[in-house]
């Protein structure tokens, strides 16, 4: 895919990239237990730091399709269960080249069952015992089953390549990323310096510092006060307040966060598709986006991945239709329905959305009782218990969304959508080499979900950043978690 959006934007920002300077970027963090281990990272701050220090074999483009990074090329066999990957010429910060052995070491480290690294689930399709290096820079991945979207695996969150044998990362981690390590204080700051020999061209910045500020208003104040040049994750309201003021620049990364209500399809009342459909019709999506996301986002159509590759654009937008909802509920014998909606302050917009939806449901005669849960254990709590909950997802390919959440054996199936036919469709897609055909299969799956799935996807939130006027080259289209999000090697200071 050659030049990423970053370089495109650089032109729009005007001027030729200037070399030098130090950029300070404020992120929310995890306190003193933060780590530089790229496989352990969980937070946005971890992801951004890992991205600066390390590389993956591939990464997601703005539409969530995999783009080659350390992998120069990849080639499947006919059965789609063996993939040959050729690495590009790249070096670690200590001068050693990135080799197939490093890749295998990294993947095996991630997959270590004793360690429970986050990306382990993503690497599950790979048979790492059978996979092997075929040369210094080429290797063959053996998969447990046909996997047409194997590149998504190489681009998955946290699948960074570390040098063979690397264990401790807190002092002097060595990666192949655009920046090399200088210093790290957990929960406070991380200082990195330009890696001159970076394979994708040395960064413009001399130095990059990540500082941790958990409170949103602290990040925006630090930005306004010139203490940082880049503030990650701002509130929609803050975005609106400063958009036109001109002292800082507000960058919105669209389609970054799916916002939904997840209905458990395996238990009453949502085991009745009519009730699910009724709920689809209850939701006033504009009202939800305006109220819960403060207008910073787009409405959803009960499908994940708006704007991403394979997204079923052609399906009609669902509108609020209280009469129809009442009718469906009556049909289902669920008049005067009472449900508990689980929510928590775990993600922006959750409690707001819950309140708004409660009022909307009341108009259809449904009593929604909002229950606040602990934000630290929310995701675990809603996974198996309850019937209806607020749900959110960051950007990932639609295929990953399906494989992680909608298959019978998916590990985080919050809607308990377990459907043999659906599973089969998925497997079929994974064995289909032709992209268009595969797209059609994804389309079929999405139609089913749209008609009777468990996710009431009401919106997609923007990811809002603030940058100082002097900062150029910040990508504007990349959803959070994709390659160009929080990417600093193409950024420069005017």
């Amino acid at each position: 895919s050659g030049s990423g959006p970053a370089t495109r934007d650089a032109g729009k920002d005007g001027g030729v990239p200037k070399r030098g300077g130090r950029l300070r970027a404020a992120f929310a963090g995890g306190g003193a237990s933060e780590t530089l281990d790229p496989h352990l990272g969980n937070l946005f701050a971890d992801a951004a730091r890992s991205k600066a220090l390390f590389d993956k074999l591939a990464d997601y483009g703005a539409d969530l399709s995999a783009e080659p990074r350390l992998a120069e090329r990849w080639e499947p066999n006919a059965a789609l269960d063996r993939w040959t990957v050729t690495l590009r010429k790249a070096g670690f910060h200590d001068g050693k080249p990135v080799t197939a052995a490093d890749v295998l070491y990294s993947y095996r480290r991630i997959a270590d069952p004793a360690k429970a690294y986050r990306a382990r689930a993503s690497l599950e399709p790979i048979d790492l015992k059978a996979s092997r290096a075929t040369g210094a820079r080429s290797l063959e991945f053996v998969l447990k089953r046909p996997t047409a979207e194997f590149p998504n695996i190489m681009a998955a969150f946290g699948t960074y390549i570390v040098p063979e044998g690397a264990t401790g990362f807190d002092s002097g981690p060595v990666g192949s990323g655009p920046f090399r390590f200088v210093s790290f204080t957990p929960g406070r700051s991380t200082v990195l310096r330009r890696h001159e020999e970076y394979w994708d061209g040395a960064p413009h910045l001399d130095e990059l510092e990540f500082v941790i500020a958990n409170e949103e208003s602290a990040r925006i104040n630090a930005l306004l006060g010139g203490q940082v040049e880049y503030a990650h994750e701002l509130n929609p309201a803050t975005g609106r307040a400063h958009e036109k003021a001109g002292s800082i620049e507000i960058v919105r990364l669209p389609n970054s966060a799916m916002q939904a209500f997840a209905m458990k399809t395996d238990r009453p009342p949502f085991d009745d598709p009519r009730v699910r459909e009724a709920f689809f019709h209850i939701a006033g999506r504009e009202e939800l986006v305006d109220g819960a996301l403060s207008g910073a986002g787009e409405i959803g159509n009960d499908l994940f991945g708006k704007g991403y590759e394979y997204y079923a654009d052609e399906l009609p937008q669902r509108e609020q239709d209280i009469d129809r909802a009442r009718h469906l509920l009556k049909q289902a014998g669920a008049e005067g329905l009472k449900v508990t909606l689980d929510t928590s302050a775990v993600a922006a917009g959750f409690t707001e959305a819950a309140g708004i939806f409660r009022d909307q449901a009341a108009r259809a005669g449904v009593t929604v009782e909002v229950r606040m849960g602990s934000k630290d254990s929310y995701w675990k709590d809603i996974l198996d218990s309850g019937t209806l909950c607020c749900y959110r997802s960051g950007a990932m390919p639609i295929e990953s969304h399906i494989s992680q959440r909608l298959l019978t054996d998916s590990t985080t199936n919050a809607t308990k959508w377990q459907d043999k036919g659906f599973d089969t469709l998925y497997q079929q897609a994974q064995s289909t080499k032709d992209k268009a055909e595969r797209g059609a299969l994804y389309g079929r799956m999405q139609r089913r979900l749209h008609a009777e799935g468990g996710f009431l996807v009401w919106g997609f939130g923007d990811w809002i950043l603030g940058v100082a006027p002097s900062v150029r080259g910040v990508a504007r289209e990349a959803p959070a978690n994709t390659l160009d999000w929080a990417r600093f090697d193409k950024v420069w200071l005017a």
Partner: protein
Amino acid sequence: MKRPGRYAAGAAVAGVPLALAVLGPFFVGEPGARAASFTPGGGHWLGTDFVGRDVLDQVLLGGRPVVLVALAATALAYLVALPVGLVSALTHRRWLEETLMRPLDVLLAVPSLLMLLLVAAAFPPGAVGLALLVALVSVPDAARIVRAAAAEAASRPAVEALRMQGESWWRLAVGYVGRSILRTLAADAGIRLTGALYLVATAAFLGIGVAPDASDWAVMVDRNRAGLFIQPWAVVVPALLIVALTMGSNLLVDAAMEHRAPAGRTPRDRVRSEPAPRAPVPPRKGRRP
């Protein structure tokens, strides 16, 4: 030395929020459709709040719970703290005092965040959880202040005399000691009231007591903070009302407490800072009738 105007300031300041709290709910119309959050104008006098509701309506609705909850919470806290503090100040049994006060110290040392989280997790949302929470958080503080204030009064000869008369503990503790430290208690309670109010808001955010989008001034202040710069009214109006409530009620209490010292011979102009006269004092002339 009665000044008729001494209640005026407090009454004027507290009157607005109190009137709103009492009468506000009667002036709220049907809730219309929600607008976008944090938008000023657009048919909403005070704009909209974080979920697009009319701020004016919320202000009108949000006073009653604040006043009720804060009052009830403070009263509850004192209901426990007062006897505990007084008993421990009045007893001569060290073990009793230690038994009463030391466990409270333990409560004090537990980070309130943890307490909040636990109560949030353990109790269903509702008045009970909320009451318990506020009591848990305020009682140790209040009890220590009561105890400290009462220590001196409890050791006065007047208390011995009351004991000599076989007065009941209540009469002694509440009628004499409590009354002697009334001013301090009033000051502390006045402040605690406001503290309780925001505790309710924090609790609401963690899911205890009232809903996180409840119509409640304190909750409004907390939840609308994100929009402070685009739609300030959603924060400023309820905050000002709370400020007025706090300020007014405390000033009223101040006024009520004015010159409550037991009557006796006091210098004409009460003792102030002026140094005692050194040179011949100017004749002190009384008013001639």
